C-alpha cells in the first residue's frame, strides 16, 4: 500500500502510512533537537526556541496559503514580492497619517488583490502558474521599487510596531510574542480547515484531476482564484507582521522567501503535481529548515558551508521520504 498524503481516516494502517512524511519530519526534528541540546547548552532555552519560532513565523503564515495552492495544483512565486509590497504600502499609509487599522487593511487588501490577479490570469486566461507568478513577482517587486524609490520607510507608530513586537495579553514570555502566536493560530486553523472541511477538501480533487473535478461540479475557477487571493492575503499578513517586527519597511523585504516556503512545503509532503500535502506537514517543513539554519549558527559552522548544507538537507529529506515510500510500496 502506498502512502498518500491526503487527510484520510479509518483503517489504522492506512492512516499511519498516510502520515509517514509527517512522522519522518518530526523524527528528524527530534533527532536534530536532541543532538543540538547536547552540543549547545543554550539550545533548549525558551529564548532559543522562540528564535526558531520567530524565524519561521513569516514563512509559516505564507506556507499556509502555499499549501492550499500546491494541494490544488497551483504554485506561487510572487509571495516574496507581495510580502515586501504589502509591508511597504502599509508603512507608507502609516507615514501618510492613516490610522493603524486603515493602513493594515490597505496592505491586506493589496495582498489579496495581487493574489486574485494571479488567480484570474491562471484560471481565466489559462496561463501556467509558474510563468504567471514569475511575471507577477517581477511586477510586484518592481512596483515596490517604484513607489519607494529604493528608500526604506521607518519611524512607524508604536501602536503599529506592537503588532510585531508585542506579547499576547502582555505575557512577557518569549513564546507569547505576537508573530509566534499569530503564526501558530493561522497554522492550526489552516490545518483543520484543509483537513476537515468540504470547501477546502475540494482542493485535493482539483489537484488530483482538474478536469474530473470540474465534471463533479466543483467550481474550479472560483476556487483557484480564491486560493491565489488567500495566498496573497496571507503573504500580506506576513509582510505586515514582518514590517511591524522590524519597525520599518525595506525594499528587499521578502526577497527569496518564495523558494524557502516552497521548499518547506514540499519537504512537508506537498507535491508539485498537486493533490497532496497538509498544513501541519508544511509547518514542520518550515521548522526543520529553520532548525538547521539555527543549528549551523549555534555550532558556529563556517558560513561558506551553510548554503551547501541547506541544499543537501532539502534533497536528503525528500530522498529519504521517497526511498522510504518505495520500500512501503514493495
Amino acid at each position, binding site marked *: *500500500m*502506498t502512502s*498518500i498524503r*491526503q487527510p*484520510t*481516516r*479509518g*483503517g489504522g494502517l*492506512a492512516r499511519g502510512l498516510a502520515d509517514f512524511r509527517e512522522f519522518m519530519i518530526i523524527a528528524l526534528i527530534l533527532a536534530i533537537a536532541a543532538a543540538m541540546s547536547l552540543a549547545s547548552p543554550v539550545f533548549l532555552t525558551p529564548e532559543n526556541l522562540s528564535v526558531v519560532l520567530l524565524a519561521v513565523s513569516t514563512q509559516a503564515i505564507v506556507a499556509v496559503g502555499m499549501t492550499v495552492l500546491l494541494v490544488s495544483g497551483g504554485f506561487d512565486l510572487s509571495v516574496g514580492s507581495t510580502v515586501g509590497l504589502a509591508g511597504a504600502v502599509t508603512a507608507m499609509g502609516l507615514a501618510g497619517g492613516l490610522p493603524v487599522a486603515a493602513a493594515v487593511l490597505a496592505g491586506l487588501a493589496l495582498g489579496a488583490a495581487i493574489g486574485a490577479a494571479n488567480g484570474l490570469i491562471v484560471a481565466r486566461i489559462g496561463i501556467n502558474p509558474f510563468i504567471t507568478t514569475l511575471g507577477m513577482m517581477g511586477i510586484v517587486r518592481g512596483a515596490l521599487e517604484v513607489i519607494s524609490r529604493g528608500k526604506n520607510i521607518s519611524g512607524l507608530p508604536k501602536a503599529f510596531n506592537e503588532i510585531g513586537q508585542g506579547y499576547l495579553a502582555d505575557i512577557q514570555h518569549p513564546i507569547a510574542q505576537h508573530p509566534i502566536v499569530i503564526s501558530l493560530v493561522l497554522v492550526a486553523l489552516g490545518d483543520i480547515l484543509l483537513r*476537515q*472541511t*468540504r*470547501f477546502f*477538501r*475540494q482542493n*485535493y*480533487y482539483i489537484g*488530483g*484531476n482538474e*478536469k*474530473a*473535478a*470540474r*465534471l*463533479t*461540479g*466543483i*467550481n474550479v475557477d472560483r476556487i483557484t482564484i480564491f486560493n491565489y487571493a488567500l495566498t496573497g492575503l496571507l503573504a500580506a499578513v506576513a509582510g505586515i507582521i514582518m514590517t511591524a517586527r522590524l519597525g520599518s519597511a525595506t525594499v528587499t523585504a521578502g526577497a527569496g522567501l518564495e523558494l524557502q516556503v516552497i521548499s518547506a512545503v514540499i519537504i512537508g509532503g506537498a507535491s508539485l*503535481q498537486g*493533490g*497532496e500535502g497538509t498544513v501541519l506537514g508544511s509547518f514542520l517543513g518550515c521548522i526543520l529548515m529553520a532548525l538547521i539554519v539555527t543549528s549551523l549558527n549555534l555550532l558556529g559552522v563556517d558560513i561558506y558551508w551553510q548554503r551547501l548544507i541547506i541544499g543537501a538537507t532539502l534533497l536528503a529529506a525528500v530522498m529519504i521520504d521517497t526511498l522510504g515510500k518505495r520500500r512501503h*510500496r*514493495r
Partner: protein
Amino acid sequence: MHLPSDPVVEARGVTKTFPGVRALDAVNFSLRRGEVHALVGENGAGKTTLIHVLGGVLRPDAGEILVEGRPVRFRHPADAARCGIGLVFQELSLAGNLSVAENIFAHRQPVRAAGLIDWPALHARTRELLARFDLDVDPRTPVRRLPAARQQVVEILKALSRGPRVLVLDEPTSSLTAPDAQHLFAGIARMKAAGASVIYISHHLPEIFRVADRVTVLRDGRVVGTCAAAEATEQSLVRSMVGRDLANIYGERQSEVGPEVLRVREACGERFSGVSFSLRRGEILGVAGLVGAGRTELARALLGAPPMTAGTVALDGRPVRIRSPADGIAAGLAYLTEDRKQDGLFLDMTVRANCVAPSLADFAGRLGWMDERRIDRFAEDSRRRLRIATPGIAQRVRNLSGGNQQKVLLAMWMGARPKVLIVDEPTRGVDVGARSEIYGLLRQLAAAGAAILMISSDLPEILGLSDRILVMRQGRLAGEFLRGQATAETIIARALPPDGGG
C-alpha cells in the same frame, strides 16, 4: 530443437504480487505459432498483468518466460519488442501532442543519410498503414485531435508497424467502431495466415468466438483452464469466469415511467445541431450512433462542458441556463464520462475519496465539516455492491484494473443521486458479471425516480436496457424507437450516413 508446433511464447509458473494483491499465481500459458489465443476473465483476474509480464512491462516475482523455447528475461518493453512481441495496451499509450506518423513510428522514423529524419518517407509509410484501416487521416494530425476510437487504431497500427511475430491486444475493441473492428479482424486473419500469433483479450464474448482458436480463462490470478474455442460456448465461458450462470443480464424495468423531467429543444454545439428530445422520470433513454456522431458532445453540452451554442433546456418544466458543469450539477444533472482516465477518476486518490467526489456536500455536516465515518461506510458499501476488486478502500485507484476503475467511476455517480443521470459508455471494459450488476443499479436508480440518458456503442446493451432509443447521425437526431420496436439492423440503418460511407 524447436518444432513448428511448439509454443512461440510460453509462461511457466509466473507469479506476480502487488501490495495486498496476488495478481498472478503460478500461471502457465502457451501461445502456438499461427494461433489466436483469447484470454478472458473477470475484471482484476490478471489478464493485463499477464500480458505485461510477457511484454516486458512488468517483471514476474517467480516463474519464467520462454520465447521459441528459450528462457528470456525482459527488463524493458524494448527487449520484448526485439523478440518480436508487440503490445497494444488497454490504456492508450500515445503522445497526444505528436502527429499520427510520429506516434506510430515513435523512435523508429526513417532517416536520410545524414541521420536526419526523412519526413516524406515517414508520412508515406504512415499513409500506407492507415490505408489498411481505410483511414483517410493526415499523418501530420496531432493524435490528441482524433476521437478515442481513431486513437485506438493508431495504437494498433503502432504495434503492427513493427511487423511483430506475436501481437498482443488488450481489449482492442472496447473503444473501436464496428467498421474498424472489422478491419482489425481482417488484419488478425492476415497475420495468422503469415504465421504470426495473437493474444486477444476481450470482455465481448461473441468476438472471442469470431477470432480465437483457443481460449484461456483466468480467475483470481489463476488459470482456470484452456480449451479450443470451438469446444466452448458463451455460457461455459461465463460459468468458468464468474463461477455461476447469468440469466438475462439486462433485467426488467421495475416501475412505471413518470412525468417529463428534461426537455431539450434545438440544441446546437460544435459537433451537433438541432437536437430536440425529452426525458421522463424513471426512464432509460438509450442514445445510439456511430463514433463521431456527436453523442458525447451533446451530453457534455447539457452539462455545460462546454455549454451549447444555441437551444434551450428545461428541467421539470422550468428553463435553465447551464454555463458550466457546476451549473449543470446544481440543476440536478450528472455526467459519467466515457474517458475515465482523462476526466473521470482521481487516479492518485483512494477508492474512498473517489467514491464521494461528486457528493461531498452530502457528507458534510454543519460548518462544512466532513463526516469521515459516513464516507467510510459509503465507500465500503459501494465496494461490496459493485464488487470492486481491491485490497481496501484506501487503495489508490491507479492500482486497480481497468474494469475495476470503471466500477469506481460508476460508484461515484450512483451515490450522487441526480435528477438526470447521463452515462456515456458506462460498461466500457467491464466484465459480464459486473455488467449485470451495473444494469441492475441503473434500473434501481430509474425506479427510484432518476431519468437516465445512456449513450452506448454496445447495441445489445442499448436494446436490452432502453425504454426508448434515440439514434444520432452526424450531429443530428436520425431516429427514435420505442422499446421493442428497434432491432440492431434498424438502428444501424439509421446511424449510417445516407451515402452509406463510414
